[in-house]
């Protein structure tokens, strides 16, 4: 796994964290400055006896067109590096488009059906975009989803983990048979742990809600049970339980990856189609605006 700024934020060096914060702060300030600049420009445009809604409207339309270009570019499968650059531009421009939208709606809610449709479409696209950005960030920031994992491979990985887990459970200690005295039933305890806690866990994706909200309580509960058992078993079983614990953690990571990648794919089902629906509404909006304009452009 490569070291990233997000990794640094979680557990990286102080210098890397500072660099990340500065980077984000500069971007935030730039967005704020550009948004403020846009508001000021629109204000002086309006003061110049022009309808400012035409200015911020076209800025908004231009921004939206740029965002759509990102989707078109992605469709034509550009290089990963180029795609990453485009995504950064897409996210950055997205924040500016939000500023343009706020200006265009004059900081007020719409008051007609058609405007509500436009507003809702834009808000849906914006919120889904913000969610996608957050998901991308959270995946990286929490380091819980390896970049190599894809949503489609998760079931296979989970099956591999399950097999490894079952093997580990089924494996017994051969030295126990050499001793005459009846020993403690460590393996039975581990088997019971499997049957009561871990078997179901490894059988399929679990804890969707907890992963959706980023909770690790289910994982802690399982690892807690493993740790409790470890205190009563001998050294070889302790090693076995440690291995099982690693498998549980890995399974939990896969579950998180599934939820995370599922959302990442799911928000696009809102973001992209609604974007195109919004384009249809926007085209009509532009036509109506110019058809009914009373000369003030």
């Amino acid at each position, binding site marked *: 796994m490569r070291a990233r700024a997000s990794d640094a934020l979680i557990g990286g060096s102080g210098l890397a964290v500072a660099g990340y914060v500065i980077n984000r702060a500069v971007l935030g300030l730039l967005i704020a400055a550009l948004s403020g600049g846009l508001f000021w*420009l629109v204000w*002086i*445009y*309006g*003061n*110049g*006896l*022009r*309808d400012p809604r035409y200015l911020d409207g076209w800025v908004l339309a231009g921004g939206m067109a740029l965002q759509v270009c990102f989707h078109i570019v992605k469709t034509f499968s550009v290089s990963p590096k180029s795609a990453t650059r485009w995504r950064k531009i897409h996210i950055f421009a997205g924040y500016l488009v939000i500023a343009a939208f706020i200006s265009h709606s004059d900081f007020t809610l*719409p*008051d*007609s*059906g*058609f*405007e509500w449709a436009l507003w809702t479409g834009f808000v849906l696209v914006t919120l889904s975009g913000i969610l996608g950005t957050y998901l991308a960030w959270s995946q990286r920031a929490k380091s819980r989803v390896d970049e190599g994992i894809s949503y489609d491979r998760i079931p296979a990985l989970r099956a591999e983990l399950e097999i490894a887990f079952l093997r580990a459970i089924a494996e017994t200690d051969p030295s126990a048979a050499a001793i005459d005295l009846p020993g403690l039933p460590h393996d039975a305890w581990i088997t019971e742990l499997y049957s009561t806690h871990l078997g179901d866990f490894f059988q399929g994706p679990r804890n969707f809600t907890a992963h959706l909200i980023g909770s690790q309580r289910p994982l802690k509960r399982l690892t807690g049970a493993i740790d409790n058992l470890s205190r009563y078993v001998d050294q070889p079983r302790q090693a076995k339980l440690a291995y099982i614990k690693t498998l549980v953690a890995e399974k939990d990571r896969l579950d998180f990856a599934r939820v995370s990648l599922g959302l990442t*794919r799911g928000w*696009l*089902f809102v973001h*992209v*189609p*609604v*974007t*195109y*629906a919004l*384009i*249809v*509404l926007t085209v*009509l909006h532009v*036509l*109506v605006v*110019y*058809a*009914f*304009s*009373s*000369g*003030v452009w």
Partner: protein
Amino acid sequence: MASRRDQLTVLLALVTAICLGSAIFFSNGTQLLMPGPLTSGHAAIENCNACHTKSGSNKLSWLHGLVAADPLADSKACLTCHKMPATAFNPHGAAAEVLEQSTRRLTRIAAGTTAPRSAVAQSIAFPMKDVIAGGLYCATCHQEHQGASFNLHKISSEKCRSCHVVKFDSFDGDHPAFENYPFKRRTRIIYDHASHSGKYYPDLAKKDPATRTPATCSACHNSNNDRRVMAVAPFDQICASCHLGQIIGKERVSGPKGIAFLTLPGLDLETLKKKNASIGEWPDGSDAALTPFMKLIMNRNEKGRGLVKAVDGLNLLDLATASDSQIKAVTDLAWEIKGLFHALIKGKASDVLGNLSAGDGAKLNTALISDLTAGIPRDAVIGAQQEWLPNLAAEMTGGPVTLPEAPSGSNAVQAVPIPSPQEPQSAAAVETNSSDSEPPETESVGTEPAGAEKTVCADEPPRAENIAATDEVAPDSEDEPETGESGETLSAEEQLAAVKGRLPLPNGTPRAIKTRIENARKKKPHEEAEAKAEGAKVVPCTDEQPRPDAAGETEAAEANANEGTEAPSAGGQAAADTTEQFDDLLFPTGSEKAGRTEEADPASKTEGKTPADALPEANTAPPAPQVQAAPTTGIESDVDPETWAEYGGWYRQDYTLYYRPTGHKDKFVQSWLVLTWPQAPTGGTSPAAAVFDYLIGKDAQGSCTKCHSVDDIRGKGRVVNFSPASVANKHGRFTHFIHEPHMGIMDNRGCLTCHDLERNRPYLKSYEQGNAWKFTANFGAVKKELCQGCHTSGVARQDCLLCHKYHVNGVATPVMNTKIPAQ
């Protein structure tokens, strides 16, 4: 997955488009596309195309709006309900020249101010030239579809600033200091506060302590009725006690107290005679000048204009050096004047004055004509005519009445068969006249029998004997109806009846009045005898100012009349002549004719006579010449005509018919000023300008312009400010102020808190010229700092629209056209 997402994308886009299409198709009109509710004032508008002119009424016709068309079309639709002048789309709805003038002034001020950075940036990034060039749309400032309670009038100060050359942040910031506010335009009424309060009122109080003089500002001013105007109390309430006398001429010490309206100008008769100028009869006693009113009246047609121009600058009393063409012009002028008098008697005064050019060629309205004539009595004109031009009717129909020997008192080239009241003809002259000259064909009322002699007093009231006699000869007239100039046939009864009941105004000197009254008194007992008189002879009447040579004859005639005998004939004056001198001038109006006919006809019917039968009777009726000719004898009175008309009205003196103003708001004076001011620029030489100058002169009767200022309107003549300041006068002003909200916060100096009376200012000098905007007020200008005491950040409003108006010429909503429902 990607393909599923793409499918969903396409599907959603299609569903969106279909839903929109369906919504538009099934919705009511194009309301669905409306970006928001209209303001409550416009809420009743249901059709989009009422304002969006290109949108049409179909569901998709709004797409026509995408086609380029008149960009102002929608704004013009606003003017359907919101009436504005033609300059509606100019900034402020003001005329281009007003804007230019204002910009020039503000550019000067801008040199001393620093513009805020945002304003500079705005003017660089988004210059205003393009916005203003094509005209400002209504929607530039009034943006609709923002909700029912949205304030459409709201406009930010920054928007105002964008166009203005003077750019500042706020009123309490760099707003320029006031320039002579509020006294930019001089007051319409010339009232020197300093001299009135400092001199006249104290003097008046000293002279007559009982006289009430204004003690507070509110004695004369209030703004209750019209919040924007500090109104002045009416003339009758505050000015009349001192100024009414000046208007009616009571306090005038020299010159006539009336306005010379019609006159018989003095002519150099001797020269005219030498040059054989045929002007007919013309009194040689007149030294009056042609009045500006007459020039203007004559100016109404091409011929008159030429005459006025030709004699302009000519001394009519000395024509010795005049060229032949000038003599011709003077001759024509004399006839024009006669024609004027004739027209005024024969027709209606309104006919003569109704076609005066009011500058734009528009026909004068009846109210104005009525005011212009000031109800001039026909008898006033008749009296003047009878006194000055007794043979006018004969002359107007038959040309100049000439005598081989010139009678005394008239010009040498004329013969007047009947002496004028002031210049009575000698008996010899009358005799000569009757014997030597053919009686002109006239519009006479009736025909006197041969041998009948009558002498009438031209300025006398209609006499009963004349009426009676003519009544009797009327059938004759019907047999041979006389045709007037207009081709109108009038019966004798009709013409005579027109005379009845008319009494001329007092004219001439007191002695003349006295004589007339005496004559009238003397003739009364003889009226019946006169009616029956056959072959009545008419003796020359006595003039008010009889000449020594005529006096004896007149007295003899009076004596004879008293004895019931025929007066000595003046020499066989033809009956036709005598009627011409009097009755035939008095053509009745249409309505009068109708009335008179009814009045006259029964008389003949009751007598059972046909018109033909009446003639012999008339011929045989014994005349009562003494009575008929009896001059009026006046009641002893020292009251001259001018004094008689002390409180205004018409009077005649010498050879002039005067009008004396009746008081404040005299309609005669006002209407002539109103009529002439569009054609009376400063220094104008037109007849209209002459009338205007005559009426606004320093010593002009009525003294209108002593208090009412005269503004020189460039290219549009001059205007006398009769109307007080009003909201209407404030159209075109950018600044407005309402006194009332400020009254409660004044300190104990009251009005003087803002308006400092500065006594040494040359206030009256402002009115010595015509530019209303060159003004030095009695009061100092209001200072910005005074307003800034309250109008500052966080205290009182200080936005532009608080004190300044955008639509300077106002916006009005016209009354809708509602057809009266038919039954």
